[in-house]
């Protein structure tokens, strides 16, 4: 069963310029530029604490107070209300059933909830039998899938996902990757992940955030290698080694200037 296809809006390209972003006086970004090509998946890797989530939050307009940054869209209109955001924590509302959590966005925007689509999405993330449960009655991976379904429900041109598959077993993980790839085809997606294989499977652009000071490096991909790639694609293994090597050449874990 597939989700009823919705007329997609034209792809939207983004350029984020983080001139100066600090937490409590500690500089996180200075003059950092991030390009998200319209209608493509960008995967972002980097060691823990380097600022991936913070960068993603800048795009979601959730910057720390006093941040100086700018988001340029390809159609020059503000990005507001054109972003779907899946945070690193699942942020499920404990008083709502899984189904109600998934249709939260519609209610927040006073739109009729597309319950057929919600049911179908729940089916696809494997939670159809759990739709009436409260989040505290779910396993960790089930919660993450509920949050994923909620993000996919949003149907926005730009989708930001912060480690969306981290709590899933390899099998479910692949299924969810495929699901997201199908549903978010031709969307502008920024995916933060720690799994090089995942980044290589899904990314049309793979970036590594290093620092401090934070800077972005692009991991070059073979030409003519459309995403999503098959799990057994032999090029994945090669690329994985190269990407891992790139990750290793960073400063010690947790360090921040």
């Amino acid at each position, binding site marked *: 069963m597939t989700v009823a296809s919705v007329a997609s809006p034209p792809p939207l390209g983004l350029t984020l310029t983080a001139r100066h972003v600090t937490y409590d006086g500690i500089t996180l970004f200075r003059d950092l530029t991030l390009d998200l090509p319209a209608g493509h998946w960008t995967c972002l890797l980097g060691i823990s604490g380097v600022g991936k989530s913070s960068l993603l*939050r800048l795009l*979601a*307009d*959730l910057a720390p107070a006093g941040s100086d940054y700018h988001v340029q869209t390809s159609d020059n209109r503000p990005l*507001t*209300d054109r*972003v*779907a*955001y899946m*945070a690193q*924590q699942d*942020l499920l*509302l*404990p*008083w*709502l059933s899984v189904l109600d959590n998934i249709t*939260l*966005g519609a*209610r*927040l*925007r*006073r739109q009729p909830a597309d319950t057929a689509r919600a049911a179908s999405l729940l089916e696809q993330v494997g939670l159809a039998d759990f739709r009436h449960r*409260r989040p*505290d009655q779910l396993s960790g991976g089930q919660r993450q899938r509920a949050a994923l379904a909620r993000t996919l429900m*949003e149907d926005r041109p730009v989708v930001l996902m912060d480690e969306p598959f981290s709590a899933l077993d390899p099998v479910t993980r692949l299924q969810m990757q495929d699901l997201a790839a199908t549903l978010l085809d031709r969307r502008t997606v920024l995916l933060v992940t720690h799994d090089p294989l995942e980044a290589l499977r899904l990314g049309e652009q793979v970036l590594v955030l290093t620092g401090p000071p934070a800077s972005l490096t692009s991991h070059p991909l073979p030409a003519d290698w459309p995403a999503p790639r098959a799990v057994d694609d032999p090029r994945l293994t090669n690329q994985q080694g190269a990407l891992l090597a790139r990750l290793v050449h960073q400063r010690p874990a947790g360090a921040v200037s």
Partner: protein
Amino acid sequence: MIRRLIHILVSMVMTALLWQIAYLAAGQQDYLLPSPLKTLTTAVLKADLLARHALTTGAEILLGLLGGGLVGVASALLLASFAPLRRWLVPVLVISQAIPVFAIAPLLVLWLGYGMASKVAMASLIIYFPITTAFLDGLSRTAPGWLDLAQVMGGSRWTVLRHIRIPAALPSLGAGLKVAVGVAPIGAVIGEWVGSSTGLGYLMLHANARMQVDLMFAALLVLAGLAITLFWVTDRLLARLLPWRATTNE
């Protein structure tokens, strides 16, 4: 249910015991504090009188809870929605609590007459504050992550309030409601100061003025019964309606 009844019984016996001790400590002076037995006897003998007055007070309590609750919830929502309003109106809220009933009793009578209205107004005023304070407190402590999410989802000030902040603050409102339910009986009794001719408060004042101390304490007993029933019902209802209410969730 049976266990519940046993608990109520035990706590009644305990109260009677404490009472008896206090009675002895006061030197068995029945005009200060009648013995539990004497009070109970009076309560039984004057059951219909007590029941009649309890009905009035009960109605005042319920109407006061309704009035104070609704206005309290509305105030908290208003204050939570408009930060500038909060800075200027919270002091007014606090002042409203500091006014002793005898200062405004004539005004209440002037505006609302001698009937139920002035008593309910007084009870509402007392109930209002814990509800507003607790709910406002809850509304201003929503988890930042949820607010972030709602913002990105395109929620308006109102829908975020409706779907995120209010439900998240319900446990706080529940705690406030418990306090309110605890003070509601005394609120109604104080309301009866405004001038009345029925109600347990009236009966108590009256009995006190006439030195019918046993009747006064019998009325007090009935009032306490009302209070406990109300508190217990509220507690149960809250536990049933808000099953997710952990103080801080991970």
